[in-house]
């Protein structure tokens, strides 16, 4: 089995994080990461990026929209269906 280069690892990182690799590929990625500080740092950066993406506060509707939606529902519920 050919070894994975650093340039190849950064191409495949999402496949790895998404669990879309064969057990054999996973073993090669893990072996590479345990021996390569640069790639370990790259993966760490990717995880921090994910944390910052998830840190975005949820969007909230205005009260006006909530009221309009309640109106939409009541009218729908009353109408002949």
């Amino acid at each position, binding site marked *: 089995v050919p070894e994975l*280069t*650093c*340039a*190849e690892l*950064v*191409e495949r*990182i*999402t*496949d790895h994080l*998404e669990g*879309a690799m064969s057990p054999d590929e996973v073993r090669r990625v893990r072996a590479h990461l345990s021996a*390569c*500080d*640069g*790639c370990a*740092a*790259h993966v*760490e*950066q*990717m995880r*921090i*990026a*994910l944390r*910052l*993406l*998830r*840190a*975005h506060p*949820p*969007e*909230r*509707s*205005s009260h*006006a*929209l*909530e009221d*309009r*939606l*309640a109106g*939409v*529902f*009541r009218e*729908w*519920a009353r109408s002949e*269906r």
Partner: protein
Amino acid sequence: LSAAQLQALRAGDERAFRELVREHESLLLRLALLYAPSRAVAEEVVQETWLGVLNGIDRFEGRSTLRTWIFRILVNRARTRGERERRTVPFAALARAETEGDFEPVDLDRFAPDGSWASPPRRWEEDPELALRSAEAVEKVRAEVAKLPEMQRLVITMRDLDGLPSEDVRNALDISETNQRVLLHRARSKVRAALEGFFADG
């Protein structure tokens, strides 16, 4: 959404509707905001979406989950609004266009000819500024996501900002598992690269 909730909704139970609305509040607004020129327009799109959901609920047959069906209605409305004359490009074609061609998650000149790092990344975890600057970093991420092409933006918004499983994203956008993953990879890689610039600039 459970069968009981769906039944309650069809029977006109307002509490069931409010629950459903609350459950999808953030993501529907986020998706509408990707397309809408203003928050007011985004809220109109959300309102039209719920009206469309209610009007179609008796015909909803559960071939997709209710959730993916709601997202499809929202995204279709958001996309066609303001371009009623033009035909919007189907997602499958857009996804193809956005996954074609070469992509460098990291600049090639960072690697030596043998594929090892010539200029390896730094560890941000050891950066004492990271914690201090995280609000700024979140803003940087938001700006970078806003620059992404449409499909990459949709996928990263649904997967990473909102945390939906990949299956829901695939179904809502009608794209393959591989395309979803390639779009996610390109989007995340660009965000990571932008952060690398951000932390390097100090």
